[in-house]
C-alpha cells in the first residue's frame, strides 16, 4: 500500500462496518474497513457490483450509518455528533449522484442555491456563489432554465455546481458518469479535475468504470466482498503490473472498438482502455 504523507486527512474511516440482509436473505455489506483520504486527493473506489462501494461512500456523510467504527471528516467525528451537528457538518460535504437528483420544479439557479439556503446563507452571498459556480461549470446561460430541458451531461454539471456552491471540503461522487455517454463522461471528468485543482476540494469517487478512475484519480481503493483489498497509486494513469486490479483487467477487460486516448505521456500499463467491471461481471 503506497504511503501518502499529508498533514491532515480529509476523510478517515476507522473500522467501519455495515451489514444488510439482501432480498435473498444473504447477509451482505461492509466488513470492518478503514480508509484514509488525504486533503486535496482525488480517490477512487472501484469494484464489482455488490462489493460495497456505494455503501462505503454513503458512510462518509452518514447517509448510511455504520454498525460499528468511526467516520471522521475534516477532523470532526461525525459518528459522535447529534443530529443538528451532523446537519452542520453535511453543509461542507458535497455529493453528486448517478441520477443527478435535481429538483425538477426549480430552475437551475434555484437548484444550485438550495444547499446554501438550507445552510441559512446570506441571500447576496448565495447569488454570488450561484453565479460563480454556474460559470465554473459553463452553464451561466442556463440559470433560469428548468432541469427537464437539459441534457444528462448538463444536469450533472448543475449537480456539480450545486455541490460546490457551499464551498465544501469534500466532494462525494457516486457513479457520477455511469448514466452518461463516453464523450460527456470525459468532459465531466475534466470539470471534476478542475474543481479539485482550483478549489482544492478532496474528491472521493465511486465508479465501476476503470477508465473514469484511471483518468481522474490519484489513488484507488479496490473493493471486493465488502472490503478494500488493495490500494494503488495511479497518479500517472499507470496501473501497477502485478496488482490485483491489473490482473482483473487482464481477466475481464476487453479492448473496445473505440478506445479513448490515454492521457498524454501516461500510457496505461494494461492495454485495455475502456473497461466496465460491472458489465463484465453481469
Amino acid at each position: 500500500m503506497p504511503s501518502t504523507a499529508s498533514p491532515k486527512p480529509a476523510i478517515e474511516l476507522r473500522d467501519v462496518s455495515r451489514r444488510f440482509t439482501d432480498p435473498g436473505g444473504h447477509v451482505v455489506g461492509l466488513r470492518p474497513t478503514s480508509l484514509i483520504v488525504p486533503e486535496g486527493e482525488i480517490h477512487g473506489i472501484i469494484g464489482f457490483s455488490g462489493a460495497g462501494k456505494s455503501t462505503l461512500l454513503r458512510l462518509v456523510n452518514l447517509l448510511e450509518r455504520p454498525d460499528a467504527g468511526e467516520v471522521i471528516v475534516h477532523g470532526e467525528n461525525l459518528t459522535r455528533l447529534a443530529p443538528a451537528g451532523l446537519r452542520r457538518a453535511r453543509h461542507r460535504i458535497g455529493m453528486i449522484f448517478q441520477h443527478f437528483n435535481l429538483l425538477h420544479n426549480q430552475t437551475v439557479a434555484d437548484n444550485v442555491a438550495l444547499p446554501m439556503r438550507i445552510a441559512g446563507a446570506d441571500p447576496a452571498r448565495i447569488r454570488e456563489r450561484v453565479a460563480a459556480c454556474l460559470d465554473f461549470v459553463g452553464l451561466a446561460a442556463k440559470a433560469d432554465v428548468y432541469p427537464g430541458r437539459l441534457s444528462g451531461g448538463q444536469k450533472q454539471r448543475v449537480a456539480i455546481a450545486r455541490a460546490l456552491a457551499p464551498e465544501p471540503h469534500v466532494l462525494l461522487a457516486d457513479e457520477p458518469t455511469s448514466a452518461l455517454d463516453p464523450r460527456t463522461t470525459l468532459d465531466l471528468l475534466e470539470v471534476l479535475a478542475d474543481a479539485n485543482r482550483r478549489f482544492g476540494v478532496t474528491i472521493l469517487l465511486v465508479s465501476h468504470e476503470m477508465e473514469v478512475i484511471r483518468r481522474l484519480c490519484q489513488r484507488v481503493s479496490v473493493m471486493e466482498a465488502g472490503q478494500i483489498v488493495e490500494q494503488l497509486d495511479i497518479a500517472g494513469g499507470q496501473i501497477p503490473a502485478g496488482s490485483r486490479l491489473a490482473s482483473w483487467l487482464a481477466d475481464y477487460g476487453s479492448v473496445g472498438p473505440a478506445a479513448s486516448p490515454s492521457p498524454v505521456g501516461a500510457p496505461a500499463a494494461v492495454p485495455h482502455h475502456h473497461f466496465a467491471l460491472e458489465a463484465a461481471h453481469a
Partner: protein
Amino acid sequence: MLETLIELQPEILKATGETLLMLAICLTAAVVLGGALGVLVFLTSPGQSLGRFRGFNLVANGLINVVRSFPFIILLVAISPFTRVIAGTSIGPLAASVPLSIAAIFYFARLIEQTLRDVPRGVIEAAEAMGASPLQIVRHVLLVEGRSGLVLAVTVLAVSFLSYSAVAGVVGGGGIGDLAIRYGYYRFQTDVMVITIVLLVILVQTIQILGQQLARRVDKR
C-alpha cells in the same frame, strides 16, 4: 322548469352559498390539519427521514384508517354530540362542517401521504446529504417536487366533499344537497332535482378543470 328556477332563485342562491361555505371550511381544515398529518405520516414511514418514529406512524396510520372506515352518514350522526359542543347546534351548514372537516382531514392526510410517495427518494436523499432538517425537506423538496400532485389531491378532495356535503343535507345540513332532498325528493319536484344536479355538475367540472390547469402550470418536470 324556468318558472321553478325563477321562483326558487333565492333558495338556490342560499343553498349554493351554504354549500360553498361548507366546502371552504372543510377544505381549509383538511389542507391545514390533514396536510400536516399526511406529511408527518409520510416522513415517519420506514426509510424516510423521521422513520425512527415508528410508533407515531403506526398510530396515525391506524387512526386514519379507522376514521376513513366510517360511512360518512354514520360519522355525521355518531359525532353529533361533539358537533353540538363545537358549533353550538347540530343542524345547519356550520354544524355540518364539523363532521365534514373531520372526514376531510383524514381523507386528505391519506391522499397527501400517497402523493408524496411520488417524490423520488434520490432527491430527498440529496437534500439530506446537504444537511437539510426534516422541516427543510418538507419545504424545499416535498412541497416543491410534489406540488402538482398536491394540487390534484386538493382537486379530488374538493370534488369528493362537494358530494359529501350533499349527504349532510339529509340531517338538515343545508346546501344544494338539502335543496335536492327537500324539494326534489320529498316533494317529487323533478325539475328542482334536475336543477340541483346540473348545478353540482357545473361545480364539479369547474373544480376539476381549474385544478388540472393549475397542476399543469406548476409542473416543470
